[in-house]
């Protein structure tokens, strides 16, 4: 199935999803920046509200059957072009063992007190990775079985991978 067909299938079911266009170099970009690159899979943007249904559809539909969560993470966009609000993107990379196709879903969330439905019940792999995202970015996952910090210790101040994280010197600094 080509990515176009996949997208139209998805859009029929959930009309709010949008395809993220291939990045283009800005008109007056310096020469050294070259041609922007992105992998050639389907990139979808999905609003938070419908992510639960969307994930369920992606996993359970027979024509898509994304049964393997390659990985998930988040990106903090603190500095954005004028006119946009700072946001964080939660990224899911999906893979289907049946059809061998891939799909990338980005879910923009607000930076403060954001909540996202957990998909640990769909893909068990999301269990620990959502914990990691929570640990590093402070994005909460609704319905997660055991949402607590995984790499940092309980009570660690701040969310380390956010762009505005400031390290407070402690006794471990030399």
């Amino acid at each position, binding site marked *: 199935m080509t990515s176009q067909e996949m997208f139209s299938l998805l859009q029929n079911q959930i009309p709010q999803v949008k395809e993220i266009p291939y990045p283009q170099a800005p008109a007056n970009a310096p020469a050294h920046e070259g041609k*922007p690159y992105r992998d050639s899979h389907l990139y979808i943007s999905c609003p938070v509200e419908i992510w639960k249904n969307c994930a369920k559809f992606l996993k359970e539909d027979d024509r898509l059957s994304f049964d393997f969560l390659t990985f998930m993470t988040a990106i903090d966009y603190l500095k954005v072009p004028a006119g946009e609000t700072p946001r964080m993107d939660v990224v899911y990379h999906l893979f289907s063992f049946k059809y061998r196709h891939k799909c990338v879903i980005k879910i923009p969330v607000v930076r403060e007190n954001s909540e996202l439905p957990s998909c640990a019940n769909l893909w068990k792999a999301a269990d620990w990775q959502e914990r990691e995202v929570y640990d590093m970015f402070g994005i909460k996952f609704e319905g997660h079985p055991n949402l607590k910090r995984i790499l940092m210790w309980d009570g660690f101040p701040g969310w380390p991978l956010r762009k505005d994280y400031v390290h407070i010197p402690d006794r471990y600094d030399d």
Partner: protein
Amino acid sequence: MTTEIIRLPGQDLSSEEMILNLGPQHPSTHGVLRVVLRMDGEVITGSEPDIGYLHRGTEKLSENRTYPQMLVISDRWDYLSAMSNNLVWCLAVEKLMQLEVPQRGQTLRIIMVELNRIASHLVFFGTYGIDIGAYTPFLYAFREREKILDLFEEVSGARLTYNYIRIGGVMADLPQDWVGKCRSFLEWIKPRFVEYDILLTENPIFKDRTVGVGILTKEKALSYGVTGPNLRGSGVSFDMRKDEPYSGYDKFQFEVPVGKNGDCWDRYWVRIQEMKESVKIIEQALDHLPEGECNAKVPRLIRPPKGEAYAHLEAPRGMLGIYLISDGTEKPYRVHVRPPSFINLAILQEILVGMKVADVIAILGSIDIVLGEVDR
């Protein structure tokens, strides 16, 4: 002959539960892993792995490092197979820069990665022997690994953190008569596999400890995102080298060993077979080593264009991926590592239940984690 855990009915027979802290200082947690076990006698009723003791925040560090500098840090993720880490980082950056590596460079990369796979699986073999209680295979495996490290030392100057595979190629071409030394090593290691099979693979005590222990079904493995030998041990033929060939793997003839039951022995057996396949790949690569340059033309200051790339490869422990977002400057905007060990380790909380303490060690060893990669 299989053993079943006899569960007797009735509340009066169940004893008080005991919490056992396995690690972070324990001989066989392979580093600083802590597993909190709830036990009824010697039978596990619940387990929770606790990680993060080796967390160094490399993803954050990478936002303040240039692209070549990150290679040095990538060595420290999975320190037993640093070549794979180097390679995956280079693949991601090269994807962004749309670079093509010359044939010789690609072949050299394959030789190094496969040698490192043998070294890494040898460590697995040895430490798994110790986990099960046999000490001698450990020393044998390290003896052979030492020879590989000598080869690496000659080619890159270091024994563990190689920093050999560079963006656009490799650090330098092979030194003189390295090929001969590599060949004599391959001749040395082939009869050793027979000894390994006698010492552990076919040893009845070893089989007794591993066959039918810690069964990971196909469905569970896929749902947990398990990759690498653990997934292949469960009977799924999925190898990035075959399914999505990178760096010219499509030119080589090799087989992907696949287990049947998904128990500890299958996971172990897959790794032993993979070492034999790696020997085959290296032999082919040495036979058809292309002449010419090994490095592509790379600008002095590496500033990949804006965009994002996800590169992954078959590391000894599974699918190692780099998700790289560039904003056009000389430092990456965001780097995410898909660490195979971290994702494979998550199955621990489920497959340990109902096992004995001795099996915990067998299962933990068979998943083959490196804590440097779990915690990054």
